[in-house]
């Protein structure tokens, strides 16, 4: 991959290139400035070299020739070597400066002026020599005339030529100064121009480059957002072959794959959904699924038949709206309001008026939980138990009839046993008495079984009437202490009572709940130690609108294999400790009839605790 990148005109190269370009522009601009400055300095040098020296030479030449003229005039009046010397002295100076001027011919016409100076000065010198030779033989008038007519015009001519030289160079200098000014001005303008161009170019390069880098990134961000929103059909435009283009290419591949996965996923999901729906629909039992707001999610074919739902427009509607069945709703509500309930799955039986009379259904409700444990909704499995109920009712009525039929023979047996034991029909031997006692004991046991069976079948069939009244659990506890006082003393066991102050009332059939309590305590008594260490603890506490009553013993406990079945019929913790194993079943039915629950916790050799719950009577509820 890295090789691929390095082979391409990478973004990095682009950036470097841009910076190099900027650098180049600035360098060019600087070079231009340097060139301009150089040309300025050259102009100044030019002035210095080509004009200043010539001007200096011309000025000195003028001074020298004027001194020569003065020496000449002086010579006219008093011929002496001094004036000739002064003249010669200045001639040397003049020639020196003239030589310098001739060395520095820069201007047009300068050489002509110089040759004119040269020739007129040579004439001037010749005439002066002539004048020197004259003065010794001529008078002053002749000398004077010679001077004014011959020498002075040459002097003037030479001086004028020198002045011309001066003027020529001075005007040239002024022209060059103007040129230097113009050069400086040009340099300023061109530098400004170059700087502006480089700034503009720099801005253009930066803008273009940043756009090139950032714009695709914005596009990328925008499309990534869309993808994260679930809209996978996104494509970036690929331009060039830099890193961003490479990124865009890979991005497009990824988006295309996402689209593919999404589609295949949707297809798979749809397939799975259809499969699950088909499975759910073909299950021979009814299934209803709701969310945590009781909105219907699924109702399978069987449930639709059971509840006679014709329309398929049920999804998302409230359960009660779809199926107006309060009992069913209560079950869902129970789960939804208490999804952490340990006794889940719960169940309840509901009745529906079908084509062939009443139909019965068992509804098992369980909470649906996410992996995180969060409550999502409720699922209900609805089984048709009409047949079972019919069989159960037949069984109940059979049991009831049979038990009933037992009563009459039991009466004559009991009476006869009484007759024998009271020795009304004659004195019994000790052995005979023992045998009759056995008959008595077992007929009493048989009687108890018959009573329990009858109670149970009444409870199960709902024929047992409940006389609900406002009561206090504490009163039952107190009664229990009295009721079991003697039995407890017999086996030296202790019974404690824990009951909080301000406990609310409960709405119960006092006789039935007393029966439950005495049954649970009776059980406990059977299993605790008889050596004085036996302990039974009764307690009650209030939890969220319920009172939880518990009966705890430190007896032998119930083995794990039996524990789940203790509330079933004919199950005993330990065989042959008396009873028919119906007591706990009746307890359960009684508690259920009160709208409560009953459950048990037990550890072998440590003890057993039975719990049952009763609804607390709410304030204002006064029955």
């Amino acid at each position: 991959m890295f090789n691929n990148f390095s082979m391409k005109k990478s973004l990095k190269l682009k950036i470097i290139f841009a910076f190099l370009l900027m650098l180049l522009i600035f360098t060019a601009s600087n070079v231009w400035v340097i060139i301009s400055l150089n040309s300025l300095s050259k102009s100044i040098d030019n002035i210095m070299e080509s004009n200043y020296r010539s001007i200096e030479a011309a000025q000195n030449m003028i001074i020298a020739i004027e001194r020569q003229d003065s020496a000449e005039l002086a010579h006219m009046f008093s011929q002496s070597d001094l004036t000739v010397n002064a003249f010669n002295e200045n001639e040397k100076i003049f020639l020196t400066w003239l030589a310098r001027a001739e060395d520095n011919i820069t201007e047009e016409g300068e050489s002509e002026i110089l040759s004119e100076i040269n020739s007129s000065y040579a004439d001037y010198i010749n005439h002066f020599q002539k004048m020197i030779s004259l003065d010794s033989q001529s008078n002053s008038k002749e000398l004077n005339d010679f001077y004014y007519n011959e020498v002075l015009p040459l002097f003037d001519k030479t001086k004028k030529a020198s002045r011309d030289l001066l003027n020529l160079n001075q005007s040239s200098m002024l022209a060059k100064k103007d040129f230097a000014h113009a050069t400086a001005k040009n340099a300023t303008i061109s530098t400004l121009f170059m700087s502006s161009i480089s700034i503009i170019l720099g801005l253009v390069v930066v803008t273009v480059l940043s756009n090139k880098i950032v714009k695709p990134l914005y596009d990328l961000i925008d499309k990534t957002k869309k993808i994260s929103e679930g809209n996978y059909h996104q494509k970036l435009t690929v331009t060039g072959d830099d890193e961003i283009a490479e990124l865009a290419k890979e991005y497009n591949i990824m988006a295309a794959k996402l689209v593919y996965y999404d589609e295949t996923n949707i297809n798979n999901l749809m397939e799975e959904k259809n499969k699950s729906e088909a499975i759910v629909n073909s299950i021979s039992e009814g299934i209803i699924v709701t969310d945590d707001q009781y909105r219907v999610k699924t109702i399978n074919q069987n449930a639709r038949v059971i509840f006679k739902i014709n329309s398929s427009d049920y999804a998302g509607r409230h359960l009660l709206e779809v199926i107006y069945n309060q009992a069913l709703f209560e079950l869902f509500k129970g789960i939804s309001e208490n999804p952490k309930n340990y006794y889940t799955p719960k169940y309840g039986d509901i009745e529906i008026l079908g084509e062939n009379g009443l139909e019965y259904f068992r509804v098992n409700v369980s909470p649906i939980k996410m992996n995180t444990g969060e409550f999502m909704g409720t699922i209900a499995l609805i089984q048709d138990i009409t047949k079972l109920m019919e069989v159960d009712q037949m069984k109940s009525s059979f049991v009831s009839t049979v038990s009933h039929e037992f009563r009459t023979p039991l009466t004559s047996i009991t009476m006869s046993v009484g007759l024998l034991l009271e020795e009304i029909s004659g004195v019994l031997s000790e052995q005979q008495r023992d045998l009759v006692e056995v008959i008595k004991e077992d007929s009493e046991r048989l009687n108890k079984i018959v009573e329990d069976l009858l109670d149970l079948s009444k409870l199960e069939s709902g024929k047992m009437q409940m006389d609900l009244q406002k009561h206090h659990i504490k009163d039952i506890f107190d009664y229990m202490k009295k009721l079991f006082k003697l039995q407890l003393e017999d086996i030296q066991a202790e019974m404690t009572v824990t009951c909080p102050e301000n406990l609310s009332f409960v709405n119960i059939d006092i006789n039935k709940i007393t029966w439950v309590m005495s049954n649970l305590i009776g059980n406990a008594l059977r299993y605790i130690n008889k050596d004085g260490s036996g302990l039974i603890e009764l307690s009650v506490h209030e939890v969220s609108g319920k009172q939880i009553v518990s009966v705890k013993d430190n007896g032998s406990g119930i083995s794990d294999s039996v524990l789940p079945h203790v509330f079933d019929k004919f199950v005993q913790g330990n065989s042959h400790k008396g009873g028919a194993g119906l007591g706990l079943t009746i307890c359960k039915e009684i508690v259920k009839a009160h709208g409560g629950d009953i459950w048990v916790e037990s550890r072998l050799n440590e003890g057993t605790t039975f719990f049952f719950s009763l609804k607390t009577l709410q304030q204002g509820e006064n029955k």
Partner: protein
Amino acid sequence: MNKILVIDDEVNIIKAVSMYLEGHHYEVVSVLEGLEGINEAKNFLPDLILLDLILPDMDGFLVCQALKSNITTNDIPVVVMSAKSQECDKVKAKECGAIDYIVKPFKPEMLIETIQKHIKEN
């Protein structure tokens, strides 16, 4: 000696109850049918009647009503003894004039107790 009339269709019950009560010094007459029981009550004039609810010829409740509507027998306390233990039966028996209701199977002592209670009251 107090006189007791037992009306029950079960021969074994009649036998056991009669023997038991005779053992406790009661004079016992027993019949197997309702109509017979009503007639016997008029003749025998017992101090108390033990009445079963299920009889072959007629309902025990009817027997009780008949006894209570007859001038010669309406003062005699009737104790229903039945295998029916439902509350509605007990209420109905009371409505028909029965003084007490004992559910079969009962203990012998309890029978004696009930009889003594109602004969004393009379």
